[in-house]
């Protein structure tokens, strides 16, 4: 799914929205309002440097998260996580011993 806002894609989206409210009265004024809304909501374009910087920051955070075992739901020493049933059983045994 590309985020590219081509003229045909913009027009298609406006036409889709108009058809969705077509059961109510849809006049040219409503289409104009939708066209204005579509253009206003998709503006202004973000600076490309800001987008690239944000992506770099997000990927760096992603890489750091990969080093944390929680992300992969694994124990620090690399063992596979216990099944849920086993974990519940251990909890019950612990509470029973109290």
């Amino acid at each position, binding site marked *: 799914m590309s*985020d590219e806002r081509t003229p045909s894609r913009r027009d298609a989206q406006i036409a889709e929205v108009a058809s*969705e409210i077509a*059961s*109510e009265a849809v006049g040219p004024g409503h289409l*104009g309002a939708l066209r*204005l809304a579509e253009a*206003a909501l998709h503006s202004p374009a973000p600076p490309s440097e*800001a987008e690239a910087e944000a992506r770099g920051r997000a990927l760096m955070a992603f890489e750091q998260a990969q080093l944390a075992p929680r992300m992969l739901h694994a124990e620090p020493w690399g063992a596979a996580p216990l099944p849920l049933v086993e974990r519940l059983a251990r909890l019950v045994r612990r509470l029973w011993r109290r």
Partner: protein
Amino acid sequence: MLLGLLVVSALATDRPSDPEAPEGASDLALVTAAKGGSAEAFAALHARYYRRIYHLAYLKTNNASDAEDVASETFVRALGSLSRFKFEASRTGPQASLYPWLHRIAVNLVIDSARQRPPSGVFSLDAPVVKGMRSLLGEHLPVEAAAPSPQEIVERREVQQLVRSAIAALPADQGDVLIYRFLGDLSVREMAPLLRRSEAAVKSLLHRATVALRAEIEHRLEAIERLEAGRDQTQQAGEEWQSVGRTHTVASRRTDR
């Protein structure tokens, strides 16, 4: 070696597009892959939604720098919760969208940072642009030869700012439905569980939002026209005053002689 590199690059360009490539993958597939540690999948999600979240943040903050901060922080926050994130049962499948979740994170960030300041106040628009907007809103004004085209009107920065202020002034549910539809690209079916309404109710809400938006825009255009009329009257009064003043000065000089 150079020949080898050329062969490899030629083969790369001839390779058919991979339907499983991140750009074409569903949000569900990308989220699953990202949870499994795929940086490429996470980068694809970022590329898919960054601009939309930026535009949402810009609508709320009316400031490019704040919008950049919110958009950037949204994905960092999302990363922190990604391991716990699950698509709702009603929205699983290839069409499930990550947008609603990112939308909530971004809106909460704007609220928490107290940077919410949508555009307001009176806007400055040329008379031909105002007329063009009225024509676009269906008032069937005669199109003048020198009038900007509808496309030129919607692309004007001042027009876009005025419309954003109108959207921000709508009731929350009406504003949200327009944002979900245009920025989130969500269908009526996808919006229904999100807004906790039936599909028919969502369509009705979308219609009310459109009607209300049109009224808000027209209200702002009227304010601009009143302001311009006020300026014209003030200018006219000033010119008349100056004319009276000159007449009085001439009369005074005559009597002083």
